């Protein structure tokens, strides 16, 4: 596969502050590539360097193998869909989409044809004569994408374009956008702070934190094998335990909690140096009142503090015995657990391979979600 976009050792400093720190990655032609990170992680700066609005401090950006650092933003074969869309309010829909074509010197029926084709593509045929302020949020969205796509860019950059939409429409647009990308086959580089957007649409996701990539992987791998504490917390939901580690005679590793719990781990760890770790277990990996089976299962007793009913996404809020820490446990809606009430005592268990463990990082980890 041809490489559409290649970024090598890219760094951007604003004074003393390093916004983007030595990042390298390749995006293959036709892929949907997302950069996922909290606000302020440097993802917008990265995107703007690719578009040409920032000059990198060091590093190389190649598009289809050609270094574009010296190419002005208006000459680069990339187009950007802006966060606020930046549709021109002084022009109608047609003129917005035709703007880039006209700048290339295209005229007459050729422009009409391309614009109308593009309008059909984004599902808004016949909208050319409308004014921008007559459009709904989702329609503006599509026009902004059409305006960029009509120029047939090698890479389409999207800067959180769904951010301004309400939740329901955003869900809908995620699917629309993915379908559109598959249909046109253009390489998309999409940045967002919403992990669900990144997961649903992307072929590959890079999780970015304070200027560097924590992990670059498929959505599935990010979810099941997070490479760092940050990724474990930022992608999906997770329960966090502060633990110490120990190794028994037979070479098995255990996580020990201050309350005296001992939980088997599936992997070996390096026990040199400081012995504080963070263990993560996803709510949906937790089993309520597990039955003993062949495989060893970690268990703890807990009190149900509250039932957080949310349809298919319902959960239990539980507190382990002798502890103050709250845990979230997925509550499947298959009537198996209908008897559980607040203040009940239950057992919670998980397979050792469901837990991941990292050395405790000093870094302040982003909290939102």
């Amino acid at each position, binding site marked *: 596969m041809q490489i559409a976009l290649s970024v090598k050792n890219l760094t951007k400093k604003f004074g003393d502050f390093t916004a983007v720190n030595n990042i390298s990655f390749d995006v293959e032609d036709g892929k949907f590539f997302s950069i996922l990170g909290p606000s302020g992680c440097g993802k917008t700066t990265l995107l703007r360097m690719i578009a040409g609005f920032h000059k990198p401090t060091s590093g190389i950006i190649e598009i289809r193998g050609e270094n574009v650092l010296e190419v002005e933003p*208006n000459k680069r074969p990339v187009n950007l869909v*802006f966060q*606020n869309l930046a549709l*021109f309010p*002084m022009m109608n829909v047609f003129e917005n989409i035709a703007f880039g074509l006209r700048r290339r010197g295209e005229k007459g029926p050729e422009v009409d044809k391309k614009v109308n084709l593009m309008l059909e593509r984004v599902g808004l045929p016949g909208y050319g004569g409308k004014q921008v302020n007559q459009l709904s949020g989702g329609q503006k969205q599509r026009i902004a994408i059409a*305006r*960029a796509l009509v*120029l047939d860019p090698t890479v389409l950059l999207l800067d959180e374009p769904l951010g301004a939409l309400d939740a329901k429409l955003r869900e809908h647009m995620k699917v629309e956008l993915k379908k559109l990308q598959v249909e046109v086959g253009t390489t998309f580089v999409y940045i967002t702070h919403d992990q669900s957007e990144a997961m649903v649409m992307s072929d590959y996701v890079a999780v970015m934190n304070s200027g560097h990539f924590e992990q670059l992987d498929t959505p599935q791998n990010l979810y099941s094998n997070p490479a760092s504490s940050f990724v474990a917390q930022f992608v999906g939901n997770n329960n966090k335990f502060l633990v110490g580690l120990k190794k028994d005679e037979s070479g098995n590793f255990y996580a020990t909690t201050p309350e005296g719990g001992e939980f088997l781990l599936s992997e070996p760890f390096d026990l040199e140096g400081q012995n504080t770790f963070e263990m993560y277990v996803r709510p949906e990996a937790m089993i309520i009142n597990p039955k003993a089976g062949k495989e060893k299962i970690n268990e703890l007793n807990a009190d149900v503090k509250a039932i957080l009913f949310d349809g298919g996404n319902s959960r239990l809020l539980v507190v382990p015995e002798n502890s103050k820490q709250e845990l979230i446990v997925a509550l499947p809606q298959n009537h198996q657990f209908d008897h559980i009430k607040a203040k009940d005592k239950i057992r919670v268990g998980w397979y050792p391979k469901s837990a991941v463990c990292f050395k405790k990082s000093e870094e302040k980890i982003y909290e939102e979600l």
Partner: protein
Amino acid sequence: MIRTLPNSKAYTAAYRLFIAVFFIFLFSPLLITMILAFNNSMFPSLPWKGFTLDWFFGRGPDKIGIFHDDSNLRSIFTSIRVAVAVSALSTLVGTMAAFLFEQEDFKFKQVFYFLMLAPLVIPGVILGISILLFTNAVGLFFEDKLGFDMKFLSPGYWLVVFGQFSFITTITTMTISARLKKFDRTLEEAAYNLGANKFEVLRFITLKYLRPSIVGAAAIAFLMSFENFNTTLFLVGSDQTLPINLYLQVRDGSTPVINAIAFLLITFTSIVAVANLYGGNKKDQA
């Protein structure tokens, strides 16, 4: 108190009366001036001696209407010439100043910004005399040292234009700045990203966005120039502008031809003002 809150009848009535008196106060001098333009009398006062259009079209010998009044016509023409120049210059420089203060960063920007605002708090009379003194000094300097006679530096057309320009540009700058402030600069980036060059971005995006405010500023500048008195008073030469010429006639007493001029001016400025307001509102929504 306000629309949604209950009020006593007496309070509402008293308030209405106050507003009515206010509007009578506001309009009675203008209306009476306009009405007396049609009075068939040699003096701009009552009694009403019948309707006439002589103060507009009269050819003399007693009643010379405005359209045959050479002195006033000449001053109107002078005022238009001044106003056109002031309006064009101050809109041009005002647009540049708006870009300078809204989009550029430079040393002493604050100082320049204050200087730009200063004409708002300098009485027009002071502006007039200081520009008179300065141009006179410069003119003398050129004449003494270089032997040039800098005609445009002595009281007359150009001095009036400079004097009015000096403070009207502050107004145009503020009018255009106010809109430029609201301009979303990502629109420029978007145009740039879509392949436009700097000139095209300016022409198709930024200036197009600013156009309503530029047109508005030009209209305001025209009107302000047309009616300026205080600054002009010290800079005017033998070509008198309309307000100066009218002043001399009002001071020394005159025929109702002034009312006819006032009638035309009020009608004209009202049309421009209303068009400006409606035009401005409509554009803002787009």
